[in-house]
């Protein structure tokens, strides 16, 4: 393993307190308190439109909260743009992949490595290659990003985020549409990142996959956290069962 080997340094911590977010008159997040350290993997579930992706956008700095504060490693980053949060080790992936379609897969990842991950050129190459390796994308490294399918675009989201050498990684539905074999490969990948000391938030609908990684589970509905804690307990919570699973326990 090259570049992004085990992350050293003190524990990283992200905290969002009292987060509200509205788009115009539409309230999307209604008072969320959430925290993540580099020592845990947290799963987020919830029905479509619950506000899960919006929460990642607010935490990562893609969009400002209407109310509430966000702290990263003890300092207030509420006004910091996403690029600066990425430089401090906090990065997210996009539910709908946003590849840089005019350049190659390797170059996509290299942008991340040179701008947030590495200081020296050789180091950036190592980071980028390592990120592609972890995601199994080396075989398509020289392909233009516009030429790969949805599965590789999702992998690219992960590889690109990884090349920033994050301490905290926010993943938004990177496992949708996978076969069983691909899904268990992804689980192994996420576990290996966890073992490197990267804290992980993973939004996923396929609860079965999530439970193999998440040590803590958060369930959102209508812009609120309706249950949180040990995965087994959350999955049997009455509110979760009715809101998310439509009445039948999984």
């Amino acid at each position: 393993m090259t570049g992004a080997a085990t992350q050293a340094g003190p524990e990283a911590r992200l905290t969002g307190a009292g987060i509200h977010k509205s788009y115009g008159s539409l309230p999307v997040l209604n008072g969320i308190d959430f925290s993540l350290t580099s020592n845990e993997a947290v799963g987020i579930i919830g029905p479509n439109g619950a506000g899960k992706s919006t929460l990642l956008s607010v935490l990562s700095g893609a969009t400002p909260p209407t109310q509430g504060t966000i702290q990263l490693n003890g300092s207030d980053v509420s006004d910091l743009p996403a690029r600066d949060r990425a430089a401090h080790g906090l990065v997210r992936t996009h539910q709908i992949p946003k590849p840089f379609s005019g350049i190659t897969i390797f170059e996509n990842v290299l942008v991340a490595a040179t701008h947030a991950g590495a200081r020296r050129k050789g180091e950036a190459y190592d980071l980028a290659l390592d990120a592609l390796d972890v995601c199994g994308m080396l075989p398509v490294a020289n392909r233009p990003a516009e030429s790969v399918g949805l599965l590789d675009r999702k992998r690219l989201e992960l590889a690109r985020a990884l090349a920033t050498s994050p301490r905290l990684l926010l993943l938004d539905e990177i496992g949708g549409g996978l076969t069983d074999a691909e899904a268990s490969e992804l689980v192994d990948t996420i576990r290996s990142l966890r073992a490197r000391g990267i804290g992980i938030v993973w939004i996923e609908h396929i609860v079965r996959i999530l439970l193999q990684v998440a040590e803590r589970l958060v369930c959102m509905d209508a812009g609120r956290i309706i249950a949180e804690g040990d995965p087994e307990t959350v999955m049997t919570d009455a509110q979760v069962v009715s809101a998310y699973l439509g009445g039948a326990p999984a």
Partner: protein
Amino acid sequence: MTIHRWTWQSKLTFTLAAALILILALVPAFASDSVNERLTVLFIYVILAAMWNAMAGYGGLVSIGNQLFFGLGAYMTIRLADAGINPFAAMVLGAVIVAGLSWVLSLFMLHLRAGEFAIGMWVLASIAHLCVNLDPLIQGETGTSLISLNAYAIADRRMMIFWAALIGMVGLLALLFAVLRTPSGLAMQAIRDNEEAADSIGVNPMRTKRLFFVLAGFGTAVAGALWLAQVSAFQPKTYFSVQWTAYMIFMVLVGGLGRFEGAILGALIFFAAETWFAATGVWYLIGLGAAALLFSLLLPKGLWGWIATRTGVSLMPLGYRVHMETPSK
């Protein structure tokens, strides 16, 4: 695994280009005046195409107002030469001033989105045109000329302008090539393709776009100053005309948007078309329009884009290739 940035084709290209530049530098020694003058025009077209491509092709900054930089480059040269500065020094200094001005303009122009930016640039060019008209030195649309060039004998002058244009073109192409190969060059393409995603992984979109905006402002101003030196007359409306940007767009779309070789090829095609058909007047313009239309319908990636995708050739590579060494031991 190793990362490669050059190919044997590109090494050959640069060797041939160096030889070609040397030959071009000797042209004034044996070619006729009209050949000298036409080649000077070609060099200016290459600059114009490359600079518009730098903004639109690599940065997604589509502008229909780049005559702003072109006109200001010429105007600043007139102004500085009038203040007693050597005309050739005035051309360089004038372009540097335009670059500074582009930096100031970028502070608000780059906050505009796609269509607003394109139109906004045109509006700025029109405002600059009006302001230049207010300068008594210019005498309104009557215009003026770069009289200080008359200090040189006509043959010397023609040769110096030729060399200035050659140096300007080669220097600006080299500068653009070098910038595009830095991490900022790659970041600019990332911003073009998805600004939010680029920001999410540490890229500063505003700073990166500003670099390209100022670079294009500088290069296009050099072209304007060279044009002024070549024709000597300065009438504001011929410099601040949207026709210049129309030419840039034509050259880049025909050659290949977002391709380094494409802008150069497009300038050559435009130059050839002008040389052979411009005398046919209105038919020439209709032909240009039809060609642009056909290219956008049949070869949306331009001529060079079509060639490069079919053959995989990259003469002036900006990117990175990953070579996997097969573990043979």
